[in-house]
């Protein structure tokens, strides 16, 4: 039960904080796998920011997105899309590859400190 003005203020602040965090949408970046090649092969994202990476597998075989630099692994089913969250990351280059076809399915996520969309 809310008893005092102080309690009311705390409750309203809490609700505002929750709604603000829900409405703050994470920026999405898209990656497509076609003919065992990731397109684009290089994605530039801002430093110190969490982003959502949506990966669409247009091939008719499975693939697994893998990155030691990002500590991420995601199974990509044929004709389906999957997503992973990455970051916040310091500026640098982070490599990723497809586990099943590592010779062709490769790419880099470039994290820039002064990134402008």
């Amino acid at each position: 039960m809310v008893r005092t003005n102080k309690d009311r203020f705390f409750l309203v602040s809490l609700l505002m904080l929750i709604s603000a965090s829900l409405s703050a949408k994470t920026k999405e970046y898209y990656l497509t796998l076609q003919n065992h090649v990731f397109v684009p092969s290089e994605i530039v994202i801002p430093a110190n920011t969490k982003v959502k990476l949506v990966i669409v597998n247009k091939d008719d075989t499975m693939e697994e997105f893998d990155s030691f630099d990002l500590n991420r692994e995601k199974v990509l089913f044929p004709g389906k899309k999957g997503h992973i969250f990455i970051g916040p990351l310091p500026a640098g280059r982070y490599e990723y590859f497809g586990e099943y076809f590592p010779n062709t399915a490769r790419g880099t996520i470039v994290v820039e400190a002064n990134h402008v969309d």
Partner: protein
Amino acid sequence: MLINTVILFVKDVLPVFIMLSFISMFHIPQLMTRRDVILLLLLTLAGMWLLNSHIESLSELFDGGGLELLYTVIDVAVYFALLMSCIIFISAKPINIVQKLILIVSIAGYIAINLSEFFLYFSTFLVSSQTLVSTLVGASFGLGICVSFTALFALTLNSLRRNRPIVLLLVWALYLAGFLAQTLYQLQQIDVLNSGRVLWNSSQWVADSSEYGYLLKAMFGYVSTPTTEYAVVYLLSLILFAAVIVLPRKLSRAKLNPMGGLQ
């Protein structure tokens, strides 16, 4: 294709062999009979069949994070089951049926997940006659590497059990800590947990993508760029292990019995 199959086999299957080495040290024959091992095998096969037949629909649950959540739940269950069984081993108490079932089901789940990941890869290339031979040869090499390593590792653990039981406990504690800490990445990947600051980068000495990196990750949860929360969970797990196993007054009075229990 051949090299890639070997690498994937080592990456996905070696952790299973390492866990089996520890289980053979701590649980067989004191906690698990031959019948239990057969049950473990059957449950693993059933788990693999279930996972492989429903993996696509499972992955779409919880806004695309179904597999990550399932893997996390099973990994955490395995962690606590192994910790519980270690306490039972040290205290030389008999394991009851519920504890035994928790242990067997969780381990079967873990093995099923790891083997399923490899079988997904395997099934992709087995259907093509061009890649069939190199995939099978690569899998044979991978199996050979895993079996050879496991034999040496089991011998080392056995020697530690007889001569340095405290060191064996330390190795076990590091293994469990690494095992638990690695579940964090699954949760961060689907945005259940936020990623924190990277504490250091040791990839110039041991890269995660190297053979040593695979091995150290499977044995002790090594990552070249650990985050703050990774280090915190790792340390908390070590403290928990010390609290439930090493610290009890019982240990200060008695020596660890290498065959299980305290003397």
